[in-house]
């Protein structure tokens, strides 16, 4: 008898391989005759390429080949545009996508110039020193505002400015709202998001098998199906002749989905040319330049409020650093624009952004994907308005929350998936109340005064957010009962630690009455499942999970139908449980799922016309639009007013992501998100000089949070199912990371009584040294 596993903290199927060192990651692929690849990358941010001479490198023993852009011939082409501009009137977009090897010009430090192939990685890296490169350096475009000033150097010479994109979206009439307002507050906000820094860097192994006309690519990608389709087209192969395997992937968080990274394009090409398997593994220094980033925005925002704190309107004009190329279209700044609205009723909204080309690495979504920036602006505006109006910080949030009877709630603007930004369901006030209760908000002022009397500066913060999750277009899954009674699930998405091997098994177990441990899940192998989009936008569990559910339902129906025929009874009299189908009330009369699978694929007799052999089904699921999760984080910090060392005393998360499949895995997602949020709020700043050089490109200088920095978190959940999918689930992958910035700024302000001194913290990250500067300079940009 199997117990119900759906909704339970089931331990993970994938752990054994990972805990015993037997999981296959890309760098673990070893092949006979494997050659190794290293890239010579630009050491300057902006330059014309005068000459590249690889002849000395080719003379080094063990070097097999060295290729520049010119060697690629017609294979050299710009990468595809992953996300076209949204169909919004007035949108400006200048498509300038990336290239496999720089030709004519380099546009950021780390842009690849030469691909070197050698017998070992050591020799390939040695050979990089043998290459002679002559560059004519150009002024680098680094600062967002100066990039748009007349006379700025141009990242793309064929454009007349560094504008990559420009978009205005609005609802209501902001000017009228502002005219009626009790107060209008206008402020500038700076928000820097960092780099995802998965502990596994990127890597590609490409193996061309000329006899089989088969290309196999092991790739640390989050989207193997897209990579397969795109590379097949580029290589002139049938899609069936290209297999992309994303095996175990050591963290992704967004940047491991790009179409294409240069290495993904170049290794298969060179493997065909040399008829040898090739491996490239990014080193940590390369990762700082060769993998995409998320970075900064500058917001000039204003909020119009009534005397009671009600929001009448918000106006925001912001600049977004897009980097040297714009393959992701407008995705990140649209997320910022949309997520700024948060869980609040905002009757009038007027938001305009400009995406700016800079001579810095490409910006693509990283966990949160621009949502952090928007949440920071609205949450800080509310704090400052509350201070100005003498209203409690929790109360100004409460009175502006969208009421539970207003769903679905249409925000009247367009989201990143081009669907109207509509919140499917939600019940926000209980989440706020639970968070206030858990953090001890009501008694905090007393606690704070008592601490201050002892010379300790403690402060409290809270931040609300929504997260659009689980967007389309679709995912699919194949569920198959094997003749040994075990169930196999295959889906096209990649997995990078989210627990897919377990949660998809829980979903199928619910339908098929088998143990989770008897279900084997395959993700990220295009030969196992042909169709799919990928793992991004907190969509794996929602979209692929629902596809698994639909496929398992069909298998369940097939099993019951077949058992009914065998037993010559009605399906209504059958029960599917414990890996077998039994007749209700007739103990001992049953058939196992494995035997049924055998019957479904008979050696003799006929499979009836119109039916299919096998106990299996493939189904697809595509939600009409994304499901909106929401939550509130609250924090108590202690700040040393001399050193600005910030110590987190308490951290609370209350979250609603609809139906929960596995609370243990969900908690893990939240923990990890908060940890990345803490890194973002505190430490993680890419420090560029005015020539576009990164000054802290090592993990000793670009600090990631350690076990001493991330506190124990207290989590609770409410459940408001999504009406957009049969299981009622919403995504949760990014939620932990989104609201941490405003929480920190607010709590530190509170701890040090900064607002009373006229000092506002309007930027992230807030390192101790930056806090020192800001408090000394009176809160202005220093």
């Amino acid at each position, binding site marked *: 008898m199997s117990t119900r596993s759906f909704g339970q903290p089931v*331990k*993970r199927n*994938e*752990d*054994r*391989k*990972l*805990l*015993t*060192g*037997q*999981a296959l*990651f890309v*760098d*673990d692929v*070893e092949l006979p005759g494997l050659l190794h690849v290293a890239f010579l990358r630009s050491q300057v941010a902006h330059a014309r390429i005068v000459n590249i001479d690889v002849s000395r490198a080719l003379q080094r*023993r063990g070097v097999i080949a060295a290729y520049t852009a010119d060697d690629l011939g017609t294979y050299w082409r710009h990468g595809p545009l992953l996300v076209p501009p949204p169909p919004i009137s007035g949108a400006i977009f200048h498509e300038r996508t990336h290239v496999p090897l720089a030709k004519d010009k380099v546009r950021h430090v780390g842009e690849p110039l030469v691909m070197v192939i050698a017998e070992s*990685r*050591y020799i390939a890296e040695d050979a990089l020193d043998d290459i002679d490169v002559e560059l004519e350096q150009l002024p680098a475009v680094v600062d967002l505002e100066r990039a748009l000033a007349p006379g700025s150097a141009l990242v793309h010479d064929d454009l007349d400015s560094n504008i990559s994109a420009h978009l205005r979206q609005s609802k209501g009439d902001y000017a009228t709202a502002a005219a009626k307002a009790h107060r209008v507050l206008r402020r500038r906000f700076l928000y820097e998001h960092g780099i*995802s*820094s*998965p*502990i*596994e*860097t990127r890597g590609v192994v490409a193996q061309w098998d000329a006899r089989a006309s088969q290309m196999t690519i092991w790739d640390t990608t989050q989207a193997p199906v897209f990579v397969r389709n795109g590379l097949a087209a580029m290589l002139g192969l049938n899609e069936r002749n290209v297999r992309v395997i994303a095996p*175990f*992937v*050591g*963290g992704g*968080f967004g940047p491991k989905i790009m179409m294409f990274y240069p290495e993904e394009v170049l290794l298969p090409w060179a493997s065909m040319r040399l008829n040898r398997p090739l491996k490239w593994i990014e*080193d*940590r220094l390369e990762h700082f330049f060769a993998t995409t980033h998320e970075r900064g925005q500058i917001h000039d925002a204003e909020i119009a409020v009534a005397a009671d704190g009600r929001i009448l309107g918000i106006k925001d004009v912001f600049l977004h650093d897009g980097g040297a190329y714009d393959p992701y279209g407008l995705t990140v700044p649209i997320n910022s624009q949309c997520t700024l609205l948060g869980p609040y009723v905002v009757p009038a909204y007027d938001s305009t952004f400009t995406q700016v080309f800079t001579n810095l690495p490409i910006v693509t979504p990283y966990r949160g994907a621009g949502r952090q920036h928007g949440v920071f602006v609205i949450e800080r505006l509310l704090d400052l308005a509350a201070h100005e109006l003498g209203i409690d910080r929790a109360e100004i949030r409460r009175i502006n929350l969208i009421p539970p009877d207003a769903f679905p709630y249409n925000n009247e603007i367009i989201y990143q998936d081009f669907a109207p930004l509509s919140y499917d369901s939600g019940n926000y006030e209980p989440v706020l109340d639970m968070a206030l209760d858990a953090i001890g908000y009501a008694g905090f002022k007393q606690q704070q005064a008592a601490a201050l009397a002892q010379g300790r500066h403690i402060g409290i913060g809270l931040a609300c957010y929504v997260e659009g999750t689980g967007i389309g277009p679709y995912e699919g899954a194949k569920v198959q009962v094997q003749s040994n009674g075990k169930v196999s699930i295959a889906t096209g998405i990649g997995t*990078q*630690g*989210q*627990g897919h091997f377990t949660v998809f098994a829980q979903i199928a177990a619910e339908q098929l009455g088998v143990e989770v441990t008897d279900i084997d899940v395959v993700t990220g192998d295009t030969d196992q499942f042909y169709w799919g989009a990928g793992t991004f936008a907190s969509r794996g569990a929602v979209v692929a999970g629902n596809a698994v559910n639909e496929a398992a339902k069909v298998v369940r129906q097939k099993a019951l139908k077949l058992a009914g025929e065998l037993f010559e009874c009605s399906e209504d009299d059958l029960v599917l449980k414990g890996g077998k189908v039994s007749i209700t009330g007739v103990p001992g009369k049953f058939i196992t799922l494995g035997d049924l699978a055998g019957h479904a694929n008979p050696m003799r007799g006929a499979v009836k016309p119109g039916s299919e052999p096998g106990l299996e089904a493939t189904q697809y699921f595509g939600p009409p639009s994304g499901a909106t999760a929401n939550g509130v984080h609250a924090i108590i910090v202690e700040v040393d007013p001399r050193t600005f060392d910030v110590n987190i005393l308490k951290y609370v998360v209350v979250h609603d992501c609809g139906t929960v499949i596995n609370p*243990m*895995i969900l*908690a*893990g997602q939240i*923990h*990890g*998100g*908060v*940890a*990345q949020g803490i890194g973002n709020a505190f430490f993680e700043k890419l420090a560029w000089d005015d020539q576009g050089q990164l000054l802290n490109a*090592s*993990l*000793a200088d670009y600090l*990631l949070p*350690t*076990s*001493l920095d*991330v506190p*124990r*978190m207290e989590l609770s959940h409410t459940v408001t199912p999504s009406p957009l999918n049969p299981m009622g689930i919403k995504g949760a992958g990014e939620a*932990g990371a989104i609201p941490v910035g405003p929480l920190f700024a607010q709590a530190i302000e509170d701890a040090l009584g900064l607002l009373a001194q006229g000092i506002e913290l309007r930027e992230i990250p807030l390192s101790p040294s930056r806090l020192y500067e800001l408090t000394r300079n009176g809160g202005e940009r220093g």
Partner: protein
Amino acid sequence: MDNDFHDIALTVNGTAYNGRVESRLLLSDFLRHDLGLAGTHVGCEHGVCGACTVLLDGEPVRSCLMLAVQANTHAVSTIEGLASPIGDYSPLQQAMHDHHGLQCGYCTPGILMTMTAFLDEHASPSEDEVREALSGNLCRCTGYQNIVDAVLAAADKMRG
């Protein structure tokens, strides 16, 4: 320089290996690519992330900061040797599974080796001591909380 090779002999997880290695070959590369013990992972190759941690004569070392030739005559322990020959988890492996102490699992080998050595010397650690010991291993997925709980639970179990 290209011909600067050395013969080395060492044990890994109790098994004797002989190899001929270039002077500059990292221990991490030797283990992963020469011996095929790819359970040891490489995250940064500059000694910060801790993913490549192995035990050298019982002491945690960063295999990306050591040369293979330096391991000559020594006993190396890696993640592949933690479970029993029939696959039973060590107490720490079991606790990591029970407490969801891993997500992508890439940093896990280094954490298992670092904390295995820690638990050998600290039978009753406090949470603060565990966090201090763990602070040289970076994990980008878990936020550490479940790893800390797993180490405390393993210590508890090992005390009996």
